[in-house]
């Protein structure tokens, strides 16, 4: 419902036109209305079904998303090699066990793979 409202209300900012000459806001407004109607039906249906607890592990998703963002940020500010190393050390925090030695080996392997992608496959990566 929140998504439908977000898109639906935003679409009001654009011209809707009429059905024979639809403006940029008409189609998103129609789809948002349909989504709102479906969301409303889901809310009504949820009253008739038993509750199920939400199995959420916030730590892992935060670590993984954080490592991706750190990779992008460090690659922009420093270079991609630093980004790869930081991502490896951060992402493995979500694993079942943590080992500095193993992380160093993984980082070396991934940096070598990045060099392979740049120099053999010709990809354009800002490694240094």
């Amino acid at each position, binding site marked *: 419902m929140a998504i439908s409202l977000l898109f639906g209300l935003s679409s009001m900012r654009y011209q809707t036109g009429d059905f*024979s000459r639809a403006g940029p806001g008409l189609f998103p407004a129609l*789809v948002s209305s349909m*989504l709102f109607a479906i969301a409303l039906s889901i809310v009504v249906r949820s009253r008739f079904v038993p509750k199920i607890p939400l199995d959420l592990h916030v730590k892992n998703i935060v670590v993984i998303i954080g490592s991706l963002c750190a990779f992008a940020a460090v690659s922009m500010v420093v270079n991609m090699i630093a980004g790869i190393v930081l991502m490896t050390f951060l992402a493995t925090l979500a694993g079942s066990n943590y080992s500095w030695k193993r992380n160093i080996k993984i980082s070396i392997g991934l940096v070598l793979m990045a060099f392979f992608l740049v120099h053999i496959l010709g990809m354009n990566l800002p490694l240094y």
Partner: protein
Amino acid sequence: MEVLHNLAFGFSHALTMNNLMYCAIGCTVGTLVGLLPGLGPLATISILLPLTYSIPTGGALIMLAGIYYGAQYGDSVSAITMKIPHASSIVACIDGYAMTLKGQTGLALFTAGVSSFIGGTVAIIVLAWFAPMLGEVAFLFGPADYCALMMVGFVCVSFVTTGSLLNGLSMCMIGVLLGQIGTDVNSGVQRFTMDLPFLADGIGVVSIALGCFGIAEITKNLDARTERSPFNGKINLMPTWSEFKRIIPSALRGSAVGSFLGILPGGGPTIAQFVAYALDKKVSKYKHLIGTGVIEGVAGQAAADEAAARTSFIPLMSIGIPENAVMALMLAAFIIKGIQPGPNMIANHPDLFWGLVASMWVGNVFLLVLNVPLVRYWLSVFKIPYNVLFPCILFFCCIGTYSLNNNMDDIFVTAVFGFIGYMFMRLDLDAAPLMLGFILGPMLEENFRRALLLSRGSFGIFVQRPISGSLFGLIALFLVWQVVIFFLKSRKNKIPMLAIPPHEAEA
């Protein structure tokens, strides 16, 4: 005769040194990634799609198709040996794993490999005959018919993948809305971009696919915290003649079922293997043994799985409308390479179309070699601990996202969709319909606006045209049927509650 001539033309393209190499790489890498726990064909294609950017169009499409059916094969190997199911190999876990427990892993893998080969071969014949015919029918389609066809696709995919029509449709609509982000092609107005310049071209399909399938799958596997012990059993691949004879009828039945169900909207490998398994349970000579680990329980579903994977290319290549999320991703790959699949593709790019069809059979041969004699070597992949594997997958996700536009902002977008995809997964909302909605959204809008322009704003065009009228009629019937089932079910649940005496209910 014409089909044979066209196939010969296709083989002349597929059997060039470069295309053979791309096909072999696609099959190998697809099988390798498909074997990994938690990574199904959708995640595999998402992760490996960027590998094809620097490859010529024909080779890239051949490689992507190889990745797709290679991943299907890889899935069944991990399902049979270690009972690691993906959506595309759930049924293989039943009899396949039961055969492993009985010490018949080699026979199960041989059966799956040969049946998949048979299924793939039958499906390619169907594809070669049927796709050009359907392509000619597609010329009759107007904008209203395309809208109706896409809506049928949404309804079918929503129902098949999530089991709940409402949940699936809501995901489709979210996908359609996400597809609206960017510049409107008719008016040039930037919509929902929040004044961020990198959103002017819209959200990249790779960012959504990698976020919702790659990142979310990795995190789900990390949440499970189950370190699987690698398969160490003995593999004896050569079956006896009597065992080999038992494979053929089931595989042919599965091939027919898979080829048919692969073409239908919302169809594809998952539903085909269930139907083939159910059919074998009804008509097979050994039907009473199915479920306990027999050849017939593996052969039919493996053939159907592979056949449906190939025939699901028919609607994509002949009409230009993908029928499931994997095909939607393939459509994106076609568009990235500058090819618009549809009725004109066969006429304008016969080399690509027939080359791809022929390469599917070549890929079939590669997969038979890779998965039957060499399968024991593939199983060593499971010896790599997940703690080593997942940073490597993350690395490929990052490189893949970045290399699309050489822009780091895309990685932030992938991260956002990783979080969204994970939340959807935990809420039991399948992201596959979202993917379909996202890719078809702009096409749906374009055809919707065009249809209304032609009809001068009258919605009657959607019911007056025979094709769109019939398709919308089918959707209406399906929706009414769903509402009736819902009320019947809720009445059924109420009756036992009413039957309980009040004092017992209070207790």
